């Protein structure tokens, strides 16, 4: 029975033994006294008593055992009783104040649900690491640090194929592999779809320690040989597209314009070294042409892949990095522009900062932080609700304590009730999380390969225990405070009506809530302004109204005049304003460059973006895409083949190539012919974006498509819609598809993509931040306002007498209203000041995520401060009016 023999005698047992000995000693004394009283001598009495007690002593141990058993039972019974009465009071609460219980469950559900979803995100993106990879902590991504053209140090994970080959010789590494992600077209005709491909070297799967779920992986020869190419499907793609049918192994499927033999399936959830979705793995060397053109095998200037290495357990990361750097420098030594100080870093697969930083991690960290703030607010509010209730029940509590109810037991009961409520809320929250996790996951990170189960079992347990602890704290702590009140004095007051003003704890919680709301709302404001800024940018084209049509011919070539026929039929579709054709560079879609010279200009000016990039466009192009001609003229149908060659340059090109003079009439030579004829600049176009919403200046120029080199004659169709309504765009996209297939049923693939869809991912960081912070910020403000409302109402109720006296002494309604509002505003002011200070400190941390708005934007700070004050006024107005309307004689008579 003794449970603490280690720490000396069991105190319970010692107490029991003492009691029993006392009891028996008393018996012995009385017996002796009685015997003496009956006439025995003291000695005879002592002998007789001792004789009888010999037997009694044997019972002592039995009594102790009995007592110990009873002790345990008693404790158990007391615990049961506490549980029972907590349960009873819970039921009573639900019946008596469903609002309190409902509000509590709602608040906790918001806090816990948000955190459950966040944890599911953070778990997949950060905690669990890449799936199906053996010992991912040994893997490193190679980062190259070198000087760029202007001498500044840059870090990049993009390396050339030969850089990867160099690292294969490293002795201090277990091995190296290369990967490169690229979108691909899979299948043909109606079944064709855009998928995500990952080009990998034959060393890739062995290096990561992955074993195939079916079939096999690439052999070294297969990876490099010509002819029929091999493909490994991802498990998810295999399930989705082929229903997990293993007979797909051995089948040949078209990918882009080549045929591939399916040889295996990657393990379940395996997506390589990142968590982004992958559908197929292609052998890097054999399938490189799907991703890149040019002499990638021999050129060190074409950086298009990332290199993964595995450290050896017996070699330090530093030594490995030094060897890798040496190999890299040796490999590049013969290059004329080699940077002798270039250095290779072996960085973790993904990180929050540095060259291997992933946007997922950054956003996950942000979401995690915001969710924690929401949870804090939720628990603070729960505590406040409990506190208000505890204060309301102060009379009852005082009586119970006075009657010897025991403060410990009271706190215990309240804590248990809180735990029960919180557990209920946790169950609701969990359902919310299970239902809501997947939509939120795919909304926040559409590219990530999410697991089938959105929320796992560990989360369930974690959430429940967290809820129980939080519930105990929220419910029990206020009771401690109430229990501490001076019961004696209270009761002696003759009346149980004590002054029910707000406690300091309540005030602190209110202020903290206000401050946290301010923090979240400032985050929201900064992101909303960034988003508005980015969306409001003049891109130089009307991207919102444009669709780009892409087609891929099938086995038989399309009928002659296909493009013209398609264009003609599209012009008749309702919703289509005009169409045009462009080749080469198309904003946000592709970039193209050809040889360009300026007679008389020895050194062509450069910009960081490279170029100049060429657009080959049909007449009417500028009007269709919405790029204005700032000087000179646009192309006309007269600018055809054989006519004098003309060119239009963008503003940046005009300024840099011919500084201080007009570009109009100047001469450019285009193409790689011996002596190409002069192309005369006839116009200057406004700067349009090349590929990013936010990018540096680009050198762009335009030539008539009919005067373009042969390989720039096949243009893609660009459609301008009458408006930027997504429904209009979707309807046009569907009609384009139907019309194209009607004209050429053999088409491999046809798609009309709104440019807005292409641009959307570039806005995602801001959309995400704005959405996230706005939702949470408004939620927090709402919760804080409700909290303020309930506390002010409660306050007014408690101060009725004081207010009555004031009214009787001549205070007007306005005075009383002003008093109540002033009180609420003072609370809000404290919250605002603390919140603003916090935001001031924290905002610079998200500066890199913002666009066009400083982290300490005064407009945002001021707006948020005003909103909080407004919320405080709204929350306290109703109780204030109620207080001012109170009839003084009535409230005084109630005394």
């Amino acid at each position, binding site marked *: 029975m003794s449970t603490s023999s280690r720490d000396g005698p069991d105190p319970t047992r010692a107490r029991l033994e003492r*009691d029993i000995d006392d009891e028996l000693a*008393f018996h012995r004394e009385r017996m002796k006294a009685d015997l003496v009283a009956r006439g025995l001598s003291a000695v005879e009495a002592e002998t007789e008593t001792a004789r009888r007690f010999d*037997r*009694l002593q044997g*019972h002592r141990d039995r009594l102790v055992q009995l007592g110990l*058993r*009873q002790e345990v039972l008693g404790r158990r019974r007391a615990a049961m009783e506490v549980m029972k009465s907590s349960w009873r009071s819970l039921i009573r609460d639900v019946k008596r104040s469903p609002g309190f219980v409902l509000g509590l469950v709602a608040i906790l559900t918001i806090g816990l649900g948000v955190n459950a979803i966040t944890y599911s995100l953070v778990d997949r993106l950060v905690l669990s690491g890449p799936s199906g990879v053996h010992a991912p902590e040994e893997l490193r991504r190679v980062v190259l640090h070198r000087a760029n053209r202007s001498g500044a140090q840059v870090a990049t994970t993009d390396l050339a194929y030969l850089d990867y080959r160099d690292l294969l010789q490293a002795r201090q590494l277990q091995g190296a592999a290369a990967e490169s992600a690229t979108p691909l077209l899979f299948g043909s005709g109606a079944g064709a779809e855009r998928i995500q491909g990952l080009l990998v070297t034959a060393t890739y799967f062995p290096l990561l320690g992955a074993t195939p779920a079916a079939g096999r992986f690439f052999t070294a020869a297969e990876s490099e040989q010509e002819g029929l190419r091999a493909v490994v499907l991802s498990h998810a793609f295999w399930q989705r597209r082929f229903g997990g049918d293993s007979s797909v192994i051995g089948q040949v499927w078209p990918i882009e314009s080549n045929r591939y033999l399916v040889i295996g399936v990657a393990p379940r959830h395996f997506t390589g070294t990142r968590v982004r979705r992958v559908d197929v793995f292609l052998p890097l060397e054999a399938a490189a042409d799907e991703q890149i053109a040019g002499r990638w095998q021999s050129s060190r200037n074409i950086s298009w892949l990332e290199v993964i290495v595995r450290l050896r357990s017996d070699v330090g990361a530093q030594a490995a990095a030094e060897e890798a750097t040496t190999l890299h420098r040796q490999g590049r030594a013969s290059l004329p522009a080699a940077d002798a100080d270039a250095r290779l870093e072996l960085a973790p697969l993904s990180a929050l900062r540095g060259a291997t930083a992933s946007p997922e991690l950054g956003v996950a960290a942000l979401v995690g932080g915001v969710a924690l703030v929401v949870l804090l607010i939720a628990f603070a509010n729960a505590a406040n609700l409990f506190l208000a209730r505890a204060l309301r029940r102060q009379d009852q509590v005082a009586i119970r304590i006075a009657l010897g109810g025991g403060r410990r037991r009271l706190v215990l009961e309240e804590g248990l009730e809180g735990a029960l409520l919180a557990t209920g809320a946790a169950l609701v929250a969990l359902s919310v999380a299970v239902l809501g996790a997947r939509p939120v996951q795919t909304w926040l990170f559409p590219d990530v390969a999410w697991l089938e189960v959105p929320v796992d079992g560990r989360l369930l347990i974690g959430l429940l225990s967290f809820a129980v602890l939080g519930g105990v704290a929220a419910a029990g702590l206020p009771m401690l405070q109430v229990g501490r009140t001076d019961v004696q004095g209270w009761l002696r007051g003759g009346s149980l009506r004590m002054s029910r003003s707000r406690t300091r704890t309540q005030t602190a919680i209110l202020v903290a809530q206000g401050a946290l709301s301010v923090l979240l709302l400032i985050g929201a404001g900064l992101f909303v302004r960034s988003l508005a800024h980015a969306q409001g940018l003049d891109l130089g084209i009307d991207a919102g109204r444009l669709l780009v049509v892409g087609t891929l011919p099938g086995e038989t070539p399309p009928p002659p005049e296909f493009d013209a026929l398609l264009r003609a039929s599209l012009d008749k579709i309702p919703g289509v304003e005009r169409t045009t054709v462009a080749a080469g560079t198309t904003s946000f879609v592709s970039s193209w460059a050809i040889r360009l010279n300026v007679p008389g200009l020895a050194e062509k000016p450069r910009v960081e973006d490279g170029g100049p990039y060429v657009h080959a466009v049909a007449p009417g192009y500028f009007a269709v895409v919405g790029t204005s001609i700032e000087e000179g003229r646009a192309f006309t149908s007269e600018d055809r083949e054989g006519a004098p060659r003309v060119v239009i340059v963008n503003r940046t090109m005009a300024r840099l190539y011919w500084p201080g003079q007009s570009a109009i009439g100047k001469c450019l030579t285009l193409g790689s012919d011996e002596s190409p004829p002069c192309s005369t600049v006839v116009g200057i176009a406004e700067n349009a974006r090349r590929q990013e919403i936010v990018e540096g200046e680009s050198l762009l120029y335009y030539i008539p498509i009919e005067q373009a080199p042969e390989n720039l004659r096949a243009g893609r169709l660009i459609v301008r819609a009458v408006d930027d309504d997504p429904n209009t765009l979707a309807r046009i996209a569907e009609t384009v598809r139907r019309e194209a297939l009607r004209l050429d049923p053999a088409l491999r693939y046809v798609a009309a993509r709104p440019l807005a869809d292409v641009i959307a991912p570039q806005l995602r960081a801001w959309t995400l931040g704005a959405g996230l912070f706005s939702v949470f910020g408004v939620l927090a403000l709402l919760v804080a306002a409700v909290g303020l409302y309930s506390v002010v109402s409660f306050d007014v109720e408690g101060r009725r007498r004081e207010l009555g006296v004031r009214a009787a002494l001549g205070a007007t309604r306005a005075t009383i209203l002003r008093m109540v509002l002033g009180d609420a505003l003072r609370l809000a002011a404290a919250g605002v000041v603390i919140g603003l200070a916090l935001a001031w400190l924290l905002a610079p941390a998200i500066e890199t995520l913002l666009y066009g708005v400083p982290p300490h934007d005064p407009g945002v700070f001021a707006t948020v401060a005003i909103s909080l004050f407004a919320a405080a006024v709204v929350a306290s107005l109703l109780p204030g009016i109620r207080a001012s309307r109170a009839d003084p004689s009535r409230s005084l008579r109630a005394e």
Partner: protein
Amino acid sequence: MLFGLLAGTLDVLLLRALADGPNHGYGVARWISVATDSEMTVEDGALYTALHRLEKRGLLRASWRRSDTNRRARYYTLTAKGRRVLAEQTKVWHRSAAALFKALGRAPKGAS
């Protein structure tokens, strides 16, 4: 002690002893001794085991008080449950004692 206590007798005697008011163990033993004209005495060890067992069953409640001689003594009080059990047991004992008397009161065959 003329004869050993019948099984179950002790418990009901203890409850009865305490029906007059709270008392300590020695007082209970004295009460029994006096009430039965010293025909019955309780063995001291058995007394305390029984008292503690009854306490455990919730028929008695124990508390430390000052005795009339101002010594710390453990007093036993009858609980409501104990009072109920005493009433039931008393009835049962009356009935079985009557039955016993009746049976024992018969003259043995062939005696007269």
